[in-house]
C-alpha cells in the first residue's frame, strides 16, 4: 500500500511539473521577448504583469471549434497532437533533480538510452499531422521536421554517448554520481553540440524552418485549431523543459553546485534548467531563421564531426587517467 502511494505521488508530481513548467517557460518567453524588443508584453490578464495570459489562452483554445479539413485522414489527424506531446511526459519521469531515490520520478537503468529513444518518438506526431492534413504546406513541413530530426538526432546521440563514456554508466543518476567539476571543460564541446542539436529537434528558432510562416504557413500544424493546436504548442514548451533538464543533468552537473550538494541539490538543478531555458528564449529573439539547406549542412558538416571529436577526446582522457 505504501509503495502504491509512493508511486502515485511520484506520478502526480511528474504530471504537475509537466503541466506547469511549460507554462512558466511560455510566460517567461512572452515577457523576456517583449522586453528584449522594447515592448511590455502581456499586461492585463490576471492583473499583475499579465501572469494569467497563458491561462486565458488555454480557456480560449478550449472554446474554439475543432476543424478537421474535409480531405484529411480523420483519425490520424486527431491523434497526432497526443503522439507529439506524450513522449515528453515520459521523459520527465526519468530526469533526476536531486541526489538519491527521492528526487527522481523513477530511476530507469538505461536512462540516457531511454530518454533519447522516447524523445525521438515525438517527431512522429509532426509527421502524422503533416501527412494526414492533406495540405501541401503541411506535408512539406512534416517532411522538413523529419529531415531535421534525422540530421540532429545523430550529434545528440554521439555527445550523450560521450558523457556515458566519461561516467561509465548510462543511468542518469549514475552519471551525476560520477560527475566531477572538471567534466565541464572536458565535455564543453559536447554540451554545446547537444544543446544546439536539441534546439533543432524542438524546431525552436533559429531552427524553425519546418514551421516557417513566411514560406509554408505553419508547417505540419497549419490545419489545426483549438485544443489540438494548443497541445502541439504545449509539446514544444514541454520539449524545452526536457531539453534544458537533460543538458543540465548530462553536462552541467545537475544537482552539484559550488557549495556542495547537501539538501539544496534540487535548487541547483532547477536554476541551471531555468538559465538554459532563458538562453533558448534569448536565441529565439537574437538569430534569424536558417535556410533549409544551411540547416542540414550545419549538422552534417559541423556538429557530427565535432561530436566525433568529442568522443575521441573523452576516450583518450578517460583511458589516460585510469
Amino acid at each position, binding site marked *: 500500500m505504501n509503495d502504491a502511494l509512493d508511486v502515485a505521488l511520484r506520478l502526480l508530481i511528474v*504530471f504537475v511539473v509537466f503541466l506547469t513548467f511549460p507554462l512558466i517557460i511560455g510566460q517567461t518567453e512572452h515577457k523576456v521577448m517583449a522586453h528584449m524588443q522594447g515592448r511590455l508584453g502581456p499586461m492585463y490578464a490576471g492583473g499583475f504583469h499579465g501572469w494569467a495570459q497563458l491561462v486565458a489562452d488555454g480557456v480560449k483554445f478550449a*472554446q474554439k471549434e*475543432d476543424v478537421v*479539413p*474535409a*480531405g484529411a485522414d480523420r483519425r490520424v489527424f*486527431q491523434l497526432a*497532437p497526443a503522439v507529439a*506531446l*506524450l513522449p515528453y*511526459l*515520459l521523459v520527465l*519521469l*526519468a530526469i533526476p533533480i536531486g541526489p538519491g531515490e527521492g528526487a527522481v*520520478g*523513477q*530511476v*530507469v*537503468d538505461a536512462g540516457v*538510452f531511454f530518454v533519447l529513444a522516447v524523445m525521438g518518438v515525438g517527431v512522429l506526431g509532426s509527421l502524422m499531422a503533416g501527412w494526414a492534413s*492533406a*495540405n*501541401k*504546406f503541411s*506535408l512539406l513541413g512534416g*517532411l522538413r521536421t523529419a*529531415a531535421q530530426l*534525422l*540530421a540532429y*538526432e*545523430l550529434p545528440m*546521440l*554521439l555527445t550523450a*554517448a560521450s558523457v*556515458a*563514456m566519461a561516467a*561509465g*554508466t*548510462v*543511468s542518469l*543518476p*549514475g552519471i551525476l*554520481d*560520477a560527475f566531477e567539476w572538471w567534466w565541464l571543460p572536458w565535455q564543453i564541446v559536447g554540451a554545446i553540440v547537444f544543446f544546439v542539436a536539441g534546439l533543432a529537434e524542438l524546431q525552436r528558432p533559429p531552427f524553425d524552418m519546418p514551421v516557417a510562416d513566411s514560406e509554408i*504557413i505553419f508547417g505540419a500544424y497549419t*490545419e489545426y485549431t*483549438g*485544443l489540438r493546436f494548443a*497541445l502541439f504548442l504545449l509539446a514544444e514548451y514541454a520539449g524545452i523543459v526536457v531539453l534544458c533538464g537533460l543538458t543540465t543533468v548530462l553536462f552541467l552537473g545537475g544537482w552539484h553546485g559550488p557549495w556542495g550538494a547537501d539538501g539544496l541539490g534540487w535548487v541547483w538543478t532547477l536554476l541551471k534548467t531555468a538559465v538554459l531555458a532563458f538562453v533558448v528564449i534569448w536565441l529565439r529573439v537574437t538569430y534569424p531563421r536558417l535556410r533549409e539547406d544551411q540547416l*542540414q*549542412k550545419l549538422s*552534417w*558538416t559541423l556538429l*557530427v*564531426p565535432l561530436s*566525433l571529436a568529442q*568522443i*575521441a577526446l573523452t*576516450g583518450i582522457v578517460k*583511458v589516460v587517467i585510469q
Partner: protein
Amino acid sequence: MPEPTVVDATVVDPTVVAADYFQSYSVVGLLAVVGVLFVAVAFGAGRLLRPVVPTPEKLLTYECGVDPVGEGWAHTQVRYYVYAFLYVIFAVDSIFLFPWATIFAAPGYGATTLVEMFIFLGFLAVGLLYAYKKGVLVWT
C-alpha cells in the same frame, strides 16, 4: 535484451533479477496510462465545450486564404532521402557506442579497447567524408 547488470553496475545491486529490472518500466507504463487519460479527458471535455458549426468553406484545405490549387497531394522533389540513408547508417552504428561506453575504461580493457573505438570512429568519419566528397551534403 542486454544484460541489465552490465548496463548499470554502479547503481543497482549486480544480482538484480529481471522482475526488479522491469519494475522501473512498469512505472513508465503507468505514467503512459496517465498521459493517455489526460489526452482523452482533454479531448472529451473539449468536445463538450466547443461549438460545432461546420461549413464547406471551413472544411476546405487552407492555403494562405485563397482557394486550394490542385489536389491535396502535390509533387515535390524529395531531397531528404539521402540524409535518411546516412542517418540510418550512422544511428545504427552509434547505438553500439552505448554498451561499449559503459565498460571501455573498466579494468582489463583500457588502451586496446580505445584503439578499437578509434577504428570504429574512423569508419564513421570516412563514411561522412565520402558522402561529403560525393556532394551529397550540398543542396542541389
